[in-house]
């Protein structure tokens, strides 16, 4: 019993860690976006405001996939262990 619960907790923790690998993609993507925005501002300093707001907008959208990973990780840490243990207990009884 303890072993089963321990396995569930271990699986949840490892899964949460794996889910947060999704943060790599948005990191690269946002870095690209910001570097291009810097180039654009360097070329045309007069449209700095517009470029900045567009860049923030694009960064927010690029971030979405990373946030999906974050939400999955948070669910795995805070919600999943209870739910899985309950499923296990229901299956035993």
């Amino acid at each position: 019993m303890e072993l089963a619960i321990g396995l569930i907790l271990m699986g949840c923790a490892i899964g949460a860690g794996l889910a947060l690998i999704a943060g790599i993609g948005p990191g690269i993507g946002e870095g690209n976006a910001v570097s291009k925005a810097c180039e654009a501002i360097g070329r045309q300093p007069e449209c700095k405001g517009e470029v900045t707001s567009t860049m923030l907008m694009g960064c927010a959208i690029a971030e979405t996939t990373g946030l999906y990973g974050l939400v999955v990780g948070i669910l795995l840490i805070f919600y999943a262990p209870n739910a899985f243990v309950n499923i296990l207990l229901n299956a035993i009884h």
Partner: protein
Amino acid sequence: MNDSTQVKTVRFRVTDALLLALTLLPVVFMITLNVLFTPESNGIEIEGALIYFTIPMPLQDLIISESQIHSWCVMVSLLFFSLYLTHGIAEKPCTRRQYLAEWMVEQTDKLVKGNMGPFFKGFSPFVGAILGLSAFSSLLALFGLYAPTSDINIVGGWALLVFILITYYKFKCGPVHYIAGFFDPPLLAPLNVISEFATPVSMAFRHYGNVLSGSVISVLLAVALQGLSDILLGWLPGVLSGFPLFRIGIPAVLSIYFDVFSGCLQAFIFAMLTMLYVSGGFSYDEYMRRKAKRAAKKREKTA
């Protein structure tokens, strides 16, 4: 004459004070509730919204939680703040608060007009409300209160509202045009349906994930700094051994980014995406074409 203006100014001042008091009262109310009901902890735990009470309902119990109370308090506070700003408004601006109110309205109008076009200019109160509510909900974290935007239920509700608006404006061109929109490349129809429903989900997750991740990182930093100060000061006797030396001031720097900057940025992005999705889903040319067609039919009938 002189007497009547004197009376008016007194009344004006009393109303002013009342409105300001009603603006601040919800904040005081939230802090009081927080002090009274939050269970004791050392402040470095990750917890969800506190549930005050549940109302039994036929399908599922209605839960009244901290985040709901807080978001309603922010709404009340913002309502009275706007009443305060527009109190004693004159045709020719003479008070500072009227300049501020006009500046806010002008900026929102400009934003809406620039992003949505002149057809949607009636949207600026809605966009302004979303901006204010979202920004001030996130800024509640500065008072040490639970930010309603770090609860998926609150932000999900807003996203659902936006989804209804998007669908409403897509339906303005008729159900045939709405369904035909899914078959734009005919083979991708299932993906288009999925992406239609992914819009509100991603909007809710984006806002909630950003605010929540900020608070989680703040808590992790607090734990790390507490551990560091324990290592450094642990050998001291008595109360001094638990003194959180490094937790003074250092988390505030992170709070400027995660609470102030990120909260305001997410409010702006949520409002921006609302505008873009609503105006993007609505095809103005098709709407005007249908309108002209209907008008021509009506004219034919009467003639």
